[in-house]
């Protein structure tokens, strides 16, 4: 039995090897394939694998097969740089990654030196703000989501008192500052501006301050754990608090820890690509394969489509030609039409406001 299994394995390996031997174009993904955020890495891998299977099924790119390399940075910046160096040695034409901003920032320097095109989903503004010509972001950035969140608050909670609170982290403070700016642009001046220490458990002081000031809405930059604590303690103090947060609020732990109060949480996140009618057939094929195309799956799929269209339009996988096409073109992908500004950010930032309702989140009205 064992022998026959081994034989089967050898035969199937032999059957696979001609594919790899034929492959002339190599593209790569990189992200946390192991560690705490491995579920995100898994989504990226599934999306990219499916996309390349479809692309190769259509006859590949420029008549050649495309092969995938996978790099695991575990969201560790040091490991990300060594992954980047490995990928450069493998002569990749295109990189979709990395996932954590703290990994993408140092790794993108390596790709820039070696003229490799990067399309990432990392949201920190610094990813594209450093003037690297090779880095493009296929998702919105934290300053964009901050201004959309702030605008929403100004529009829907006009006349109410709003507190802007952050957790002093780079992500949280940046997001809170942008939300405050967005509110001011919408003609709503925040009543309070406060910071808390993440990891603390007791926020009753801040809750009381907000209660005293008559605050009804809190715009929060930070992670979901603190929001759950703040909501619980506000509830206990008899303060009905509505929260506007960022993409970290998608975590379902928020609902478990905050209970029904989580229904008061609004947040910004990229549009649900599964609702895009043009993506229906791709979504269907993922589901047939037993993969729910959630989170970053369709982003990885779109990144590979982006590469296909850019290389086809440039008639080459040379960096200079592709970079020019990427910067000036418009591309149709499963996550919608993509085009980029001078910095490499999405020209039309795709962020929408969601709201938790009974343990599920959906577009807010």
């Amino acid at each position, binding site marked *: 039995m064992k022998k026959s299994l081994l034989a089967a394995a050898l035969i199937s390996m032999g059957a696979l090897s001609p594919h790899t031997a034929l492959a002339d174009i190599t593209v790569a993904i990189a992200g946390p394939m192991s560690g705490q955020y491995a579920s995100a890495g898994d989504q990226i891998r599934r999306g990219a694998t499916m996309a390349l299977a479809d692309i190769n099924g259509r006859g590949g790119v420029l008549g050649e097969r495309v092969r995938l390399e996978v790099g695991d940075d575990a969201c560790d910046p040091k490991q990300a740089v060594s992954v980047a160096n490995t990928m450069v040695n493998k002569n990749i034409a295109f990189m979709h990654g990395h996932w954590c901003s703290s990994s993408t920032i140092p790794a993108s320097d390596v790709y820039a030196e070696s003229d490799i095109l990067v399309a990432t989903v990392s949201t920190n503004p610094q990813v594209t703000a450093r003037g690297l010509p090779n880095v493009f972001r296929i998702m919105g950035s934290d300053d964009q989501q901050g201004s959309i969140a702030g605008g929403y608050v100004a529009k829907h909670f006009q006349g109410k008192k709003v507190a802007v609170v952050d957790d002093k982290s780079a992500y949280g403070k940046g997001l809170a500052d942008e939300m405050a700016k967005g509110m001011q642009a919408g003609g709503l001046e925040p009543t309070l501006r406060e910071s808390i220490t993440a*990891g603390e*458990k007791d926020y009753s*002081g801040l809750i009381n*301050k907000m209660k005293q000031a008559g605050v009804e809405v809190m715009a929060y930059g930070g992670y979901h*754990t603190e929001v759950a604590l703040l909501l*619980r303690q506000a509830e*206990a*103090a008899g303060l009905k608090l509505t929260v506007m947060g960022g993409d970290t609020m998608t975590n379902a*732990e928020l609902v478990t*820890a905050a209970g029904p109060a989580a229904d008061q949480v609004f947040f910004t996140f990229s549009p649900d690509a599964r609702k895009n009618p043009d993506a229906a057939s791709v979504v269907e094929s993922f589901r047939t394969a037993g993969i729910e195309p959630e989170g970053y799956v369709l982003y990885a799929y779109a990144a590979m489509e982006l590469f296909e269209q850019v290389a086809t339009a440039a008639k080459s996988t040379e960096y200079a030609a592709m970079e020019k096409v990427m910067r000036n073109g418009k591309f149709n992908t499963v996550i919608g039409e993509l085009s980029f500004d001078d910095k490499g950010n999405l020209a039309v930032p795709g962020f929408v406001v969601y709201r938790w309702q009974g343990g599920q989140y959906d577009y807010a009205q």
Partner: protein
Amino acid sequence: MAFALQQLINGLTLGSMYGLIAIGYTMVYGIIGMINFAHGDIFMVSAFIAVTSFTLLAAAGVSSVPLALIFVLVVAIFFTAAYGWAVERTAYRPLRGSTRLAPLISAIGMSIFLQNAVQLTQGARVKPVPPMIEGGLVLWDNPGFSVQLGWSQLLIILVTISLMFGFRWMLVHTSFGRQQRACEQDRTMAGLLGINVDRTISLTFMIGAALAAVAGVMVTVYYGVVDFFIGFLVGIKAFTAAVLGGIGSLPGAMLGGLLIGLIEAFWSAYLWAEYKDVATFGILCLVLILRPSGLLGHPEVEKV
């Protein structure tokens, strides 16, 4: 006024929890003269035991909150006391009689070990518990700002007060209390008089751990979020409380805990919330400079 009253309630709740943990530090210091730096992590372990038992109870279909609470308290006290005993037995007893620094380093090692063990077995992510005790009393219905005392806050304050009195009674009136005080005064002499010193020390660790377990269950119920790192900050604050009240003194530990809770509550309400730890530790520095033995502590007299 209403605002200040509300902060007073919040500060007392927080302070009660610090006080319960601080007793563990102060008792151990009193009897063997070392700081048990793993005590904060014992508290963290108890919070995890509480989360696990709440989950098990929910799976078993127990929906009565008072019943669940009592059961979880008993389970947490039992297992955490076992942890306290094991920590003393493995990390401190073999080092008794060696230099003063050895058990201290061993305590820090034990603290790191416990943190990592929980991180590995339970994961690094936070463990949420759904809200259990909701609602409370409206003490003062002021227009615009009503003063509220949550049932869980009331529970924490009441449990702490009754534990304090029960504990004091035990130390003064029971035979274990007398043995404990005897060991505190002079271990060799107590041993010569037929007191089982090792057993008394073990029991002291177990009682300290049991009190930390009560605090752990309270934190789980009140805040509803637990992770492997919560013992660190709370442990440092409770240690500060013990030093502030005068290390070695039981009423001092409670007083120190309440003071720290109140300082944090009022500082974050009237000044900058982000600097409240600066205030807490700043006041600790001042007390140590002006009154090195703490508020209620007695200066140590070196016997010749």
